[in-house]
């Protein structure tokens, strides 16, 4: 089935593959930038235990690792919640706290996601990693600065999940690749998530199952 991948996507994959060896070109101009800066309404940061100011979005090369680290923590946080999504209803749980600290002070987006996971748990749907060994693994593929303190970027996530009922029976197995457009904001020098919107994975590079 995967072999039926279209020539268009294949062309992109080849393009990505052909470019994999020239990381020494660090031209920030390769990232799309917008000319109009939008002010964010973020008023407070969640816990920030570091005094180090993370790079501005306009320095794409420097900020990308910070955003990747943010997404790595995101992957871990949601994997912990999805193990038993009922935990999402407990705001004091470690799992929920780990998730919420990834977001800005305005966390209605995160609250909505937690409510969604709570419903999953109530429906008796529990997630565990599929044959790939990890539920999801996100890669930041493109960073677009909106201002120094706001960036939009695309993540491509390789997923491998099994969903069980409350008796432990596997009722679904899903895998493949998804993508999201993510907006992050820098508050008090630290990058946080604002929202994540599912996007087409067409532009994502093809990933091998084993990395």
């Amino acid at each position, binding site marked *: *089935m*995967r*072999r039926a991948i279209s020539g*268009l996507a294949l062309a*992109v994959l080849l*393009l*990505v593959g052909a*470019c994999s*060896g020239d*990381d020494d*070109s660090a031209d920030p101009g*390769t990232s799309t930038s917008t000319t109009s800066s939008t002010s964010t309404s973020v008023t407070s940061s969640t816990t920030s235990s570091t005094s180090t100011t993370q790079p501005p979005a306009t320095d794409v*090369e420097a900020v990308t690792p910070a955003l990747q680290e943010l997404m790595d923590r*995101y992957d871990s946080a*949601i994997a912990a919640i*999805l193990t038993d999504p009922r935990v999402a209803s407990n705001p004091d749980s470690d799992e929920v706290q780990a998730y919420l600290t990834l977001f800005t002070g305005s966390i209605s*987006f995160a609250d*909505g996601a937690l409510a*969604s996971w709570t419903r999953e748990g109530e*429906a*008796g749907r529990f*997630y565990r990693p*599929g*044959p*790939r060994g990890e539920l999801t693994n996100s890669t930041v593929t*493109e960073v*677009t600065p*909106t201002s120094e303190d*706001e960036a*939009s970027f*695309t993540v491509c996530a390789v*997923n491998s*999940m*099994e969903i069980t*009922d*409350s*008796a*432990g*029976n*596997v*009722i679904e197995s*899903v*895998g*493949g*690749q*998804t*993508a*999201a*457009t993510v*907006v992050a904001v820098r508050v008090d020098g630290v990058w946080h998530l604002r*929202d*994540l*919107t*599912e*996007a*087409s*994975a*067409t*532009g994502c590079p093809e990933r091998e*199952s084993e990395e």
Partner: protein
Amino acid sequence: MRACLAAGVLIVGALVGLANPAGASASPGQCVEYSPLGYCIDWDVPLPGGPPAGGGGGGSTDDIVCSWVTIPDPSGDDPSVFYDFNVAPPPADVPVVWQALECSDGAPSTNLRWIVPLTPENIASSVRGRIVGALPQPMINSSPPIGTASIVDVAVFVEVTNWTGAITDSECAGGLCVTVAARPVLTFTPGEPGSNPVSCAGSGTRYEQDGPPIEEQAAADGACAYAYRLRTGTEGRPVSWPGTASVTWVISWTASTGASGSLPAVTRTTQIPRSVREVQAVVVGGETA
């Protein structure tokens, strides 16, 4: 590398309508539907270049809608799909439905899944698991008290103190609602050679000191009582008979379609070992002298 990546993405973005990052600063409004990964798949006010409304994932413009489409089992022709898509093989002997996430832009599917079809039995099984996980271990009160020897031919009474009665739980999915009921049935097994399990009514029987004679209470219909006949601790016998009180939860389900069925029962057992002694006594009015 980044230059090429950006160029590649931009090319594809131009061709298939990848989200315009310039819209990132727009107010995101309120997300009304999330994917399992916590991505918003439906905003109350669609963003320019935003996600598909009510799509179910995968699209990137208002014109692109993605949905799971049932496909023939792809593993028959190409077992590598399990590897390619990081999907586990389905359980043996379980019918599943294969689906691919297909989008209206015609892009090749990047997601594959199989699901166990939604049936009342499947939903009931899920609810059963939830109920079973919450079933309590029976806590026992007995007369004479646990740890106190009973007397030959004098009835022992057993009751469950944390009796819940029937437990019900429901779940609705895909327009189908199923209610599962677990009804407890108490059985007292004396453990004495030659004895039969005693089927008890309700939560069992508490001996009423001021009630009818003990023999009468023990003989009542459904009484959870048994008079041991063999003393313990003599040669060839244990220090106590391995009595038990078991609550068996009989589980059944009914669906909103009118269908119904049963599910495997679950038993919770508490040990109530009983030593028995023999006394030469005259029994008067239900009390030992």
